[in-house]
Structure formats: structure tokens, C-alpha cells
């Protein structure tokens, strides 16, 4: 971009890409976290709180899964323990899915923007 009187910095920013649709889809994901910020009524307040709680549980659930895999790889779990651990985590994942459905939340809804620390998930 050449800077010139016809193209000063206060002109509209240029956007350059060869993949418009892909980026549109990606940016819509980013701004689609906005949907729950919609109405000023009780239902979305409840949904907002559910989202917060479920996000935290989801975060912990993922940590638990990672930890379980790590221990499994570390070789200090018996086959029975692996089986039990797997079943428990499987049930937890299923339960969380049920709760998400109940509150009408998608996977993308369960995320927290912690600003300088980044996104939670």
C-alpha cells in the first residue's frame, strides 16, 4: 500500500485475503460468542449463569481427561483402573452434554475470555 494524499491513514483500512469465505466463517465464530449477550430477560440471565458454571466444569473435565491419559501412559494404572477411570470420564462427558442441551448451549458457548490470559479453553 502506498501512502499518498489519495490514500491517507484515515482512509478505510484495506483488507487483503485470497480466502474470503474461510475468514468470514472464522470471524463469525469469534463474534458468535455474542449471541448469549442478547435479551434483558430472566431466561438469558439464567443461561448466562449456566454458561459460566458449565464452562468451569468443562474446563475441569478436560484437565481430568488430560491427567487420566498422562497416568495411563505413565503405566501405573492397572487395566481395571483404566477401565473404571474411562467409564467415569465417559459418563461425565455425557452428563455435561445433557446439561448443554438442556440450556441450549453449544460447545463454542462454553468459553471464557480472560483478556490478557487468553481464552479459557
Amino acid at each position: 500500500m502506498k501512502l499518498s494524499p489519495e490514500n491517507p491513514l484515515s482512509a478505510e483500512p484495506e483488507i487483503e485475503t485470497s480466502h474470503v469465505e474461510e475468514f468470514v466463517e472464522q470471524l463469525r465464530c469469534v463474534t458468535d460468542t455474542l449471541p448469549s449477550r442478547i435479551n434483558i430477560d430472566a431466561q438469558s440471565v439464567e443461561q448466562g449463569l449456566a454458561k459460566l458454571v458449565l464452562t468451569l466444569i468443562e474446563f475441569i473435565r478436560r484437565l481430568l481427561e488430560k491427567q487420566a491419559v498422562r497416568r495411563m501412559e505413565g503405566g501405573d494404572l492397572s487395566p481395571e483402573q483404566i477401565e473404571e477411570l474411562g467409564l467415569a470420564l465417559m459418563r461425565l462427558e455425557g452428563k455435561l452434554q445433557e446439561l448443554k442441551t438442556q440450556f441450549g448451549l453449544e460447545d463454542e458457548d462454553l468459553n471464557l475470555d480472560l483478556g490478557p490470559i487468553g481464552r479459557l479453553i
Partner: protein
Amino acid sequence: MKLYVYCLLEGIDEMNGPVRGISGAPVRLQALENLGVLVSDFDADAVPVTRENAMTHAAVVRSVLDRTTPLPFRFGTLVTEQQLRSYISARKPALETNLALVRGCVEMSMKIIWPVSKEASKEREESTEPDQGAGATFLAAKRREILGSELRSAQANEISTWLHESISGLTRDEKVTIQSSERLFLAAAHLVERPNLQRYREKMSAAREARPELHFLLSGPWPPYSFANIELEFKTQFGVS
């Protein structure tokens, strides 16, 4: 009557011409201590997030970019004049530090998508052992998933490092965020000194050609939205990095 605030700036005494703001209200330059704030009057309690308002906000902040580098306020900031005064006088050192950081610069935005690789789908076809219980199968699948995402994190770091090295020396500061869900998405904000803008563009063009497997989006110049933050203070006060 509240004020809609657009940005904080220094070095300008008056507007160059009439500028229309939110709801068509005229924008004026309010002097506060030795700084200035672009404001317009606003009559309701909340600002509707419409295309028109978002674009108007951006246009107003942009209108001074030729003459100075402003610190944009977040879209939708409504205050009374008194609140604005308190904010400025209480935050003055941090704001001046922030203005100094962005002085003479503009923000360029670079976003990169790396579409899903073929290795990911191959992994999923691994067969399970016949006498494995449901729980063990579940964990094995999770293991593949987690390894996949660790791979993507490594890829993300590689791209981030490569990008940083490609424009090394041309940016005063950078902010990078990475999402590695199904496909890798990296968003970088670069604070570029104005005289370096041309060379920055050239280096970015060359970088894009060097990595045809990546999909790029370059936009700018923008006022320094991503570099307007008083979290700087938060970090030094509380040791968060």
C-alpha cells in the same frame, strides 16, 4: 445527557472539519488536562450494536489517524463528563505511558488459518482392541485427541515464531492469540511505526508467498485498538504476566 467517548489523544487542538458520530451527533474534541478526548452527546442508556454504529465508531477514531495516534475506547463507552474527568485524572500516568507506547504507530492485523491436516483423520481410523472395555476405548480415543491438539499447539507455536521472525525489527509491539480447535487460527496485531509501513507490507507479501499452505488475511492500517489497555498497570501491580 451522557457522552459517548471514542478515543483519547494528544497533540491535536481542534478537529479538521465536521465529523458525525453515533446517532448523527456532532463529534467534538474535549480538552482534559493536556490530553484530548473525542466525544459526542448521547441520549439513551445503551448503545445498540448495529452495523452503522460500529462503522461510525471506527470512522470517528480513524478520522484523526493522519495527525496523531489515538487510544481508542471500547465501543459503547458512555460516561458523564464528571466520570470522564475522574477517569483521566486518576489514570493519567498509565494513559500517558500507553500513548507513548503507540506514538507514531498504526496497527496492522494479520490473521492466519491453517486448514486441518490429513494426519488428523488418519489417526481416527486406528482400530480398537477387541477385548477393550468401553472405558479403556474412551480413554484411548481421548489420548489420540489430546495428542492431536498437542501437535496443533506445537504447529501454532512454530507459525507464531516464524511470523515474528519474518517481520522482526519492523514492529514496536505484537499481540498474538491462537485458537487450535479443528483448524489452527492465529490472530496477530502488529504495532508498526509509520515510516516502516511500506517495508512491513513488502515483508508480509514475501512471507505469504513463502508459506502457501497457510491462508492469510492482512488488514490495516488501524488505530491501535489492540494496544490500548491499562492492563499494563494490572500486570505491574499484581505481577501477572
